């Protein structure tokens, strides 16, 4: 009996035993599982029933799942203590990528450690928001303006390091994950509105002086897909045909002619949503959106229940980052947004972004299941 010991963790009676002992959240797990199963089915269909592709996907999912389990075991306090270190190492890696990185498609994004290659910006997707949350850990929200400015400076630093790789898309997404923390920490509306105004006003300047030709090209193709029928414009046209021809009920599982007849590019990764929309129609799409909404809602609930600033800010920001990824990917394949190479979370054929995502789910679960008993 542990009655004499100071109780550290709240016993989680609502859920069954095995989930509690593994520090997992049942509802979140349910959402994740359903999304992964959907994803695996679509990957299988989009690859033309290629079992090899499917099994490789499942192996990666399994690996990512194990990482999630591991991270769920780490109490938020420990995560908080290590955050500045991880952030520091990540920053050094970003700098070394610029100095000695591998060049793929003209951009320095990869770091080669001999035995494996990875993108340090992947670490920053988690490390940046967590670092800013660490900064505010012991303040009363909203934190003093000085700290807000430091947080803003960190966002600028990391976004800047990634922008010169050059990787505009990733840099914007990572900057947003940091900005979300500032938002949840209570950045005043006046600041937010003036920042939005400032960004809008500076867009022409960025366009003229800071964008590479290929980036401009993407935006131009987005505005007029017909102008580049062999390149990205063609992709968007074909993707819209796939989605639109799905209709209300879809063509049925394995029925995506757009994918099977090679019209749809990257059909197992960036454009996987189009395959789902073609095969399962508006009904399937609605279901998928609801599923994502459920996961996001559960995530925000977990954030609202967190007891400390670090935990609640990290949780809320990670959840909103997930939202942004979903929105940007679906917006891109349906022609609402310009083409940025971005997978659909939990559905696309597994890559390093899947790993990052599952780690962030692990952190969410850890936050929800490692709670102190409120003594007062």
């Amino acid at each position, binding site marked *: 009996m542990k009655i004499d010991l100071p109780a550290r963790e709240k016993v989680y009676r609502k859920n069954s035993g095995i989930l509690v002992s593994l520090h997992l959240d049942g509802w979140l797990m349910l959402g994740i599982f359903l999304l992964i199963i959907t994803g695996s089915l679509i990957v299988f269909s989009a*690859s*033309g029933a*290629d079992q090899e592709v499917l099994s490789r996907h499942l192996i990666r999912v399994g690996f990512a799942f194990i990482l999630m389990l591991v991270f769920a075991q780490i109490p938020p306090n420990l995560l908080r203590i290590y955050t500045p270190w991880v952030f520091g190492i990540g920053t050094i890696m970003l700098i070394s990528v610029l100095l000695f990185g591998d*060049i*793929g*498609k*003209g951009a320095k994004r990869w770091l080669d450690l001999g035995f494996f290659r990875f993108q340090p910006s992947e670490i920053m997707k988690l490390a940046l928001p967590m670092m800013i949350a660490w900064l505010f*850990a*012991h303040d*009363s*929200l*909203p934190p003093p303006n000085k700290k807000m400015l430091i947080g803003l400076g960190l966002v600028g630093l990391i976004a800047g390091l990634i922008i010169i790789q050059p990787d505009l898309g990733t840099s914007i997404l990572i900057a947003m994950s940091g900005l979300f923390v500032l*938002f*949840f920490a*209570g950045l005043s509306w006046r600041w937010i509105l003036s920042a939005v105004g400032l960004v809008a006003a500076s867009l022409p300047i960025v366009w003229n002086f800071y964008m590479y030709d290929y980036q401009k090209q993407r935006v131009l193709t987005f505005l007029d897909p017909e102008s*580049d*029928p*062999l*390149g990205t414009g*063609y992709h968007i046209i074909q993707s*819209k*045909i*796939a*989605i*639109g*021809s*799905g*209709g*209300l009920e879809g063509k049925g599982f394995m029925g995506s*002619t*757009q994918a*099977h*007849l*090679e*019209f749809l590019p990257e059909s197992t990764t960036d454009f996987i949503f189009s395959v789902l*929309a073609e095969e399962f*129609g*508006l009904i399937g*799409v*609605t279901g998928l*959106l609801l599923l*994502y*909404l459920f996961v*996001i*809602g559960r995530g*925000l609930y977990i*954030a*609202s229940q967190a007891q400390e600033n670090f935990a*609640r800010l990290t949780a*809320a920001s990670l*959840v*909103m980052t997930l*939202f942004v990824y979903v*929105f940007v990917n*679906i*917006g891109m394949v*349906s022609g*609402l947004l310009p083409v940025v190479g971005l997978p659909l979370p939990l559905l696309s054929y597994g890559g390093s972004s899947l790993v990052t995502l599952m780690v962030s789910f692990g952190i969410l679960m850890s936050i929800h299941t490692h709670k102190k008993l409120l003594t007062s």
Partner: protein
Amino acid sequence: MGMKNKHRYQTESEIFFQKRLFRNRIYFALGFTLIFFLLLWVRMGYLQWVGYKHYHSMSEGNRISVEAITPVRGRIFDRNHILLADNQPVFVLKFSKDKIENLQDSFSLLQNLLPDLPKERLSRFLERVKVGSKYRPLYLPYTLTEIEAARFAGHSYQFPGITLVAKLKRTYPFKESAVHAIGYVGKINQKEFTQLSESKYAGTDVMGKLGVEKYYESILHGSPGLQQIETNARGRVIQKLESVPAKPGKDIQLTIDIRLQQYIEKYLDGKKAAVVVTNPKTGGILAYVSTPGYDPNLFVDGISQTKYQELLKDHNRPLINRVINGQYPPGSTIKPFVALAAIENNIISPYKKIFDPGFLEFKDHRYRDWKRQGHGLVDMNDAIEQSCDTYFYELSLKMGVDLIHDSLYPFGFGHHTKIDLYNESVGILPSKAWKRRVKGQTWYKGETIIAAIGQGYFLSTPLQLAKAISIMANRGEIIEPHLLKDKEYVKKEQIPIQNIENWEKVIKAMMDVLHSPRGTARRYGRDLPFKMAGKTGTAQVFSLNEGEYDEENIKKSLRDHSLFIGFAPVKKPKIAISVIIENSTLKAAPVAVDITKYYLSELQDEN
């Protein structure tokens, strides 16, 4: 961290305010998410409900796909419009993996039908098809003979997904001739594929890999056209719709004279050697010879592993581009440049005589002349003509290595010649700063002594020597050696001249190398119908300190290289040449003289 100490308990009102603030933000985020998801949902409704008919007919009725038309690659000509790289129509087999029912069966059936298909290549290709994308068609890297093509056409019904297509294949009619200059095209590999612009290389599976083919890739390649193709639901072509024609690559003309090139290659007969012939006025390269060579046609379809290993393991190293990557000690060939630097900078009078007892003693070390008994009293003219080492040993001590460096630099030593080829080696033009930077050590005077005769750290490529001798022939006008005929440089820089007489004196001494009774190459210049200036040289492969150089007892591969640089005619130079024969299997001087003779008598008028 000190965080714990800073941590203070919040007041009741702070806790309340913070809770309310965070809750509000969460609500806002949730609302934000809902609105944007609604936006996505509306968009989907628009596409899938309102737009359904439109998109359905686009997807269902017929399928129009866009296929790229491969542009015809630009051809390469020599300076007299003789074709060096051509495109020939050939038959190949195209594999569309998604339409092949059973890969293994199709392949063994194919092997039976066409027994001459190289087995190893076929099985390697099978592996490639197995792992390759389902949707990107692959071409078997094998050119079918007409008989094989006819046989396959008759049995094509047995091979769904495998089609006979006509393609243009790059061919090099002169085979190994000038291969190191022209280079070759080859299959685009995975790494290159990720770096290429997708729309520019749609429908193309080869690109320039080496030489001019690589350097002028953007000119030669052209840009692909578009063909809209209507296919049925199984992907079979029903009809071809409108098309945008491909823009063919541009033909290019080189400065090379393939007749001179072949004359030299035949002369050298596969010995390890490099020869560069330029027109000193323009810097245009008339012959670019690195022997032995290899047949670039082997690489176009992808070379077989055994053949490639053979080339790699060949002791004569045919794959090495000796002209720009062979870095040799220039030896005595740099003496005229050192002498010029000395008299232009008033270090020594050209008439001043120095006594050569056969060696120079410096700091207890004896630096030997190649002539044991010495040359006696020599002035500058004698020193170049007879290649006296001791004279230059003395001179170097007066000059110092940095003056030698600064004077030789404008002749092109130690840096890129700016030739239109990639991966040029730059050699080494030593200086105090160079040694500090690269070796982290200070310079010793003894090193200056051997640098002055082109040994020690000194390294240069045959191309650098050709550039330097061209500039000497031009009396200081700096040219950039190049292979593209259009690349005539309007603006040429000039090495500042103190006294043009000094240049003429050095050139006169170089003329005496061939035409005076004591010149080191007198045997070869005797009956020439024109005047030629030049300098012989020897590059040590194996450094022998105080010892004797005994040609008989040294392994052939360690024997010294034989060098020669020169130009002719002396008054109005039309040709400049640099020759390196590895391990002296031939003497470089007669090779250079014969090439010059051939060029001036047979070819010069036409060029």
